[in-house]
């Protein structure tokens, strides 16, 4: 049970203490958890508990190239996680202390002779530091291969839009009759390009399908060129040999699942003259079911 002091001055002192706690303004630095916000962005901490949508090419955007997906090994790491080596707002990453550095903009009047003042960002905390020499990694030119990965992140190597005949919706096929396989030719989905530019360096990538390998679900595989295979037209193609497919058809009745796997080559070139290839990529389509029935011979 709370007991109040009997002495008047003790009561007054207690009141003073309570009032001071109630009405004293908090220090500005403690106004918001995680540091104060700029005057015109007072709600800057509203997303502190949320991850932003990853920008294409950011480490951790779910695409190769960030050191975690079988792409290029990450050069810049903080606490075991890949980070960008250069951030357009924070500057260059220093692997030795896990902080970004940029020259303070503009340089103040009171910088000591021979020194430069840097804005340092360590895990979201900003401070300034005056240095004789630039920190590790500062001023490194953009890495064209990193830009190539960023450009690559802007495109989607889609699984091939495939079709087969006999069409599953039209009913089963028959043992021994040709099976036609083709991929959509109209959208030129097998040729893609993109570019990315940073600090004057532009890198362009071109992704092309070199071949499509069809898995027919019975252990057989058929390889066709990109865009290969013509669409089956019953009025024109009945009895003809498919450009891509199984000319002799399936030899046993049954239900089969057909997959198509595209093999991509991704080449890059840069305005500095450097160029190369990113690791080969493959994409596999969802299965397309096909039913093959026994060929019935009807005699009269």
């Amino acid at each position: 049970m709370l007991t109040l002091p009997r002495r008047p001055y003790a009561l007054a002192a207690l009141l003073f203490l309570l009032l001071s706690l109630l009405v004293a303004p908090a220090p500005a630095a403690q106004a918001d958890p995680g540091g104060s916000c700029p005057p015109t962005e007072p709600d800057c901490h509203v997303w502190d508990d949320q991850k932003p949508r990853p920008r294409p090419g950011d480490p951790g955007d779910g695409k190769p190239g960030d050191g975690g997906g079988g792409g290029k090994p990450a050069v810049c790491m903080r606490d075991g996680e890949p980070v960008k080596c250069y951030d357009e707002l924070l500057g260059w990453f220093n692997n030795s202390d896990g902080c970004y550095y940029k020259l303070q903009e503009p340089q103040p009047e009171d910088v000591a002779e021979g020194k430069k003042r840097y804005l340092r960002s360590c895990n979201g905390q900003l401070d300034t530091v005056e240095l004789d020499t630039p920190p590790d990694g500062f001023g490194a030119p953009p890495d064209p291969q990193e830009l190539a990965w960023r450009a690559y992140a802007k495109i989607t190597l889609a699984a091939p839009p495939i079709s087969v005949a006999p069409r599953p919706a039209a009913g089963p096929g028959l043992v021994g009759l040709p099976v036609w396989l083709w991929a959509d030719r109209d959208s030129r989905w097998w040729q893609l390009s993109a570019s990315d530019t940073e600090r004057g360096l532009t890198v362009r990538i071109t992704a092309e399908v070199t071949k499509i390998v069809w898995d027919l679900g019975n252990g057989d595989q058929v390889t066709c060129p990109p865009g290969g295979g013509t669409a089956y037209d019953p009025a024109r193609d009945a009895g003809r040999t498919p450009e891509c497919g199984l000319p002799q058809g399936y030899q046993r009745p049954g239900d089969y699942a057909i997959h198509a796997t595209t093999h991509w080559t991704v080449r890059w070139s840069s305005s500095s003259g450097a160029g190369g290839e990113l690791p080969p990529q493959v994409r596999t389509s969802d299965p397309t079911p096909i039913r093959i029935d026994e060929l019935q011979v009807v005699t009269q």
Partner: protein
Amino acid sequence: MPARSPLRAAGAILAGALLVTGCGTPGPGPLPDPTRAAPVSTVDAADRQAAERAALDAYAGYLRASREANRAGDPLHPALTDYLADPLLTQVRLAIRDAHDHGARRTGTLTSDPTVTLVSLEGSPPTVEIQDCLDATGYRLTYVDGDRAVPGSAGQRYLVTATATRYHDRWLINTGAAHRDQPC
């Protein structure tokens, strides 16, 4: 001599508490630190007035530039460097980028009534402290698709403190903070 009652003693101490915490003074927020005040006698009054004017111009320019950059969702909006210096410049850019990366931006109007609380022309570099009661009730953080307000971002009136610093031949706002816990 009248006896001192507990109520009267408490009242006297309450007045003391209000004085200590700054309530009852004309402006909201923390009082300027008197130890930082420059000696007036050694600085020309005209220089002080010119510094105050330049600082308030920079502050007003900062509010305009920030609104433009926020509306455009562009953290590298060129107007920002006309009025801002680091570290506040980078803080503002990061906040704009953060909103943009979450599919949101700030739009609307800010109403400002700034005053100069301290001029320090003999420091290196010279600085001017500014205090403002910023009315952001018409300034909203909303998602771009759907125009929904971002939860937790309600506009209000709050105390702002900022510092204008001289950079060779111009004054720029280089620090500033929104004190949302201090409505005004």
